[in-house]
């Protein structure tokens, strides 16, 4: 799952895959603004076939949290 999330973040942010890690966030990736964040959320929902809650969408502001939230959705 990790690789897939990295790849999606990379494509949506147009940011090199090799520079992405679990701590990547709007602080480390300049392109990750509010618009790109919505794009990322929509892309993740599409690829993993899940629906985040509005709170989750607002809170998933780094790759670690994204992975955690996805795992929660997938296990429930």
């Amino acid at each position, binding site marked *: 799952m990790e690789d897939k999330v990295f*790849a*999606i973040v990379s*494509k*949506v942010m*147009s940011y090199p895959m090799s520079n992405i890690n679990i701590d990547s966030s709007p602080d480390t990736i300049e392109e990750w603004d*509010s*618009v790109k964040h*919505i*794009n990322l*959320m*929509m*892309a993740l929902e*599409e*690829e993993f076939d899940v*629906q*985040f*809650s*509005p709170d989750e*969408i*607002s809170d998933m502001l780094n790759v670690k949290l994204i992975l955690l939230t996805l795992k929660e959705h997938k296990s429930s």
Partner: protein
Amino acid sequence: MEELSFSEVIAKSKEKGIKLSGPECKIRILSNIMCFQLNDFLEFTLREQGINAKVTSGNYDNILQDSVERIEMSVVVVFWELSNLVDGFHYKAGLMDKELRGELVEKTKKGISVVLKNLVEVQQVFFNSFSSLVFDCHRLDKSPLTEIAVELNKHLNECASSNTVIVDINKLFAMVSISKSVDFRYYNLSKSLYKLEYYREYAKFIAPRILSVWGLTKKVLIFDCDNTLWKGIIGEDGMEGIDMSSGSATGVVFAEVQHLALELKSMGVILGLCSKNNEKDIDRVFSHADMKLRESDIAIKRINWHNKAANMVDIATELNLDLSSIVFVDDSDFEINLVRKELPQVMSIQVPKQLSEYPHVLRRLFPVFAANSRSVEDVNRSSMYHDEQCRKEFKETFNDIEQYLRSLKLKLKIIEDDLSLIPRLAQLSQKTNQFNLTTKRFTEHEMERLVKGFSEKLFCFNFSDNFGDYGITGLCIIANRGETVLKYAINTFLMSCRVIGRNVEFVFMDYIIKHLLNSGAKQLDAEYMATTRNSQVEDFYEKLGFIQVNSGTKHKIYELELHNYKWSGIDYIEVENGR
């Protein structure tokens, strides 16, 4: 084809963008909602077709101001959402004070006018229709929101100039479904109303028009033959074994496809064949009773055993057109994949495995060709060309009508002085109002006297075409003027409205004049008496060469020297003498 995911669309679009050169197609999206995802889908869809598209967005909810100075843009797309006319309008509209609502609508209408005026120099504007469907599609009555949408759309239609296409977003809702189109989680969070699927379809919906503005419209439609224009393989199954009959469940699919192909041809699309077959076999199929396409409909043929990609190149060269203007339809995985791989510029369409879907696949292609007829529509709108267009249309309509009538196998059976028809003839005289020169009404008794007498002659006709028989639908009563056998007068000339528009009246009159000439007549008098219903025949006699001898318009009196009669020259109505 498998759809790419959003992240793949973003990546592929970027990849293609780097490779593309050529003039940039600058596109700006103006909106009162957030719709950034459309940028990626639109860029991707256009870049895939070779357009160096660059899509940017205006500021959020700033359509009016953003519409100023957009002249350098090639394309502007306007998303003006009803739900956000003012914040929360979709739920506030129902309770809103009528006066306030009216003011808001007026303000929006003014805004629309200003925006369209500001954008008038832009090559192509797409302006979304206003829709309340998301909020009230379940309501049988008209919601306040619907009423507002209707009013705004009416205004939008009135203001739109020829560079503007109004995008009917209700069609998109129908294609995508409302639940797959909108997502209120994102709307409530960030005013992002629409979902990815909606933008994917939206981009595909408007792209053909942008392609045509960019001069990249499809012009040629090339069909394989076996299992593409008919069911079966002519070389193996023979003439009896192939099926394209509208009477069979499988054949009807191919009958429909052939009809659609002809419809495209009528829009200016060039039709061609490319098939691995013996040319003689294919030629023979054109004489098949169910074959709708004629040999003359096919502008270019490559019936041989060469590789189809090579044939496509050959076709493009012969037609002196770019490969990207070709659409190729084939049932074979092998051929489709070969052409897709060798010539990605050619749009290759495979006949779907579920055959009943095949006509629908072809229908979805109409927009990529439609640009051919669109230029006519544009010319039509410009008043400068309007008059010329009217003349041309009149001529075209005339030609079409004659062609159409010719195809109908019209048949006129003329019957003279028949007693058995008296009830029907009396009824005709009573009921006919529109095509009736004198509107004289006769009872059966009076009609019988006319038929039996010596001074009147009755002609009537039975009319039929290949759709059916219309029965006795026309009547003419000729009276001998008494003083001399050389002079006659038309007492009644009428025709049922069911047969109007087929030029029967002229052929009927030809017959009567011929009859009079044969009996030695020299002159025929006639009259037109105006009623509230018969103005369509007020100049009927003028057309035939009759001269009006009085000065009235309500009651015109005519004379005709029979040698001055204008024969119709119509040869597509068969005349038969019933007696």
